[in-house]
């Protein structure tokens, strides 16, 4: 027997999350809850394992292909297990004007990863505008924004990641 996807506690969290989401939509429109449901799954497992996608699809009464289609369209969903810390560096125009490309190069060297690569601890990605153009350059680590970054500030943030 394959190991179940969820621990009993995770299962409870998943069921409660899905029930809450479904209650926000008309009864015949359960599938509208796809984005938030995938978010619940990812919050529990850290990524979207295939058997999890199947479970979400079942709960929302759609095919697993539909869940996969949505999951693969949006960049914030992880179809592969990412590093413990996902670092998304904005290099769009306003950030690049404040040195974002150099900041990314600094991170690549410091973490020993190229943008787009991952190890157990870090996933490093180049990302699109994070709506922090007035406080450039910026990045997000596991969805937390860090803005107006200097070398010193970035070093201090990285030092706290264990």
């Amino acid at each position, binding site marked *: 027997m394959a190991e179940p996807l969820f621990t009993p506690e995770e299962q409870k969290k998943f069921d409660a999350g899905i029930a809450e989401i479904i209650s926000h939509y008309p009864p015949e*429109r359960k*599938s*509208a809850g*796809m984005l938030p449901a995938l978010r619940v799954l990812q919050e529990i497992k850290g990524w979207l394992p295939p058997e999890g996608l199947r479970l979400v699809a079942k709960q929302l009464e759609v095919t697993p292909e539909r869940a996969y289609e949505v999951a693969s369209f949006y960049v*914030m969903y992880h179809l592969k297990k990412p590093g413990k810390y996902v670092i998304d560096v904005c290099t769009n125009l*306003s950030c690049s004007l*404040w040195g974002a490309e*150099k900041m990314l190069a600094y991170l690549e060297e410091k973490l020993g990863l190229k943008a787009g690569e991952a190890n157990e601890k870090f996933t490093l990605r180049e990302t*699109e505008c994070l709506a922090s153009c007035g406080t450039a350059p910026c990045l997000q680590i596991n969805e937390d924004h860090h803005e107006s970054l200097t070398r010193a500030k970035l070093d201090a943030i990285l030092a706290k990641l264990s």
Partner: protein
Amino acid sequence: MTATAKTIDPIISAAWGKPQSWTLDSYKKRGGYEGLKKALEMQPAAIIDEVKKSNLRGRGGAGFPTGLKWSFVPKDSPKPKYLAVNGDESEPGTFKDRYILEDDPHMMLEGIAIASYALGVHTCYVYLRGEFKFPAERCQAAIDEAYKAGIFGKKMLGKDFELNCYLVRGAGAYICGEETALLESLEGKKGWPRLKPPFPAVVGLFGSPTVVNNVETLASVPHVFTGGADWYAKLGTDKSGGTRLVCLSGSVNRPGVYEVSMFTTLAELIYDDKFGRGLPAGRKVKAVIPGGSSAPVLGADELDVAMEFEALKVKQTMAGSGGVIVMDDSTCMVRSLWRVARFYAEESCGQCTPCREGTPWQTRLLRKIEEGRGEPGDIEMLSNVASSIAPYPPIGLGNTICALGDAAALPTHSFLMRYRDEFEAHIREHRCPFGDKPWGSFGDWS
């Protein structure tokens, strides 16, 4: 135009940065929800008329008159009606809605309540871009407060009108800021825009009449009722009422979000002490994008223009989402356009061939030119590819279902029109004339 019209007291951003500004308590102390009280004493049709009279125009990009949009919702539809709030703020250079959500979310919620009452909407979805974790937390806390205070829920301030409001986070897709892609996403699908017509006001979410309004637009609505439509209209021009949030970024001393009058010019925004305070010593403006990265770029000699929908249209560009990006004379235009082109290639949803194939093609050509491998004919090819996505000058929508195609082609057309010599120099010299500093040197990372 009177000189006094240029100095306005902020109305949307007045409380930003003040302690606890995001709480219901703070909002009420500042007169919050008084606009809703006034609206609830009016007939729904009169509310829509008032918004029409105020000349409020959508702040998401297109600048469509808000009252007119509301009036398109059929009154006799047997289907439920929906309000969808567009908080997908993803246009490069735009970062204003997040501060409304973070610092004064109740102002938007009051706008939601007024709009819903006027339109007969009983369910509202607030769609925020997935990356807005902190803004979403603040917004959700405010929604919870509004339920507890009897604004949302079974009754609206004691009146027999039910409104439920749900927050939905996206998951990283610029296209979902396009209103029909947003509706698709709200329906739990990938964000593929729909053909229009029918417009969402007639066939929107779940096939029902739906109004899609931007966060700032809705946050502006309460002021139409507290101050009156006439007062609100008089703040602005004949065709565009109220104040406007603009986002200043790039090569300026003081980037940030500023609430300006519709008469404030780009030059004032960049140089005035109240706003950007100019460029760093020794730098000059080379190019300014006035309304988010899709807006055609303006040159240094074109900045004496009000940051308002009609005035910028005359300059063949757009006020868009209010994202003003300043590039100085040490910035390479090829590199800048390459980065913008990459964005659209990354964010193209893949539905229409001209955009799906054309956006990476633009990117490859620009990379080739920037890296010194450009050949004679490449500039013409680039122009040709852009025209295949959306011709210039624009004649309504280009060759794609949604405006992302136009958004991807317009920067190329406008950069080539204004800075063609720089592109030619790259090809002639087989290198980037800016060497290893295409972004100039600015800030801590230079």
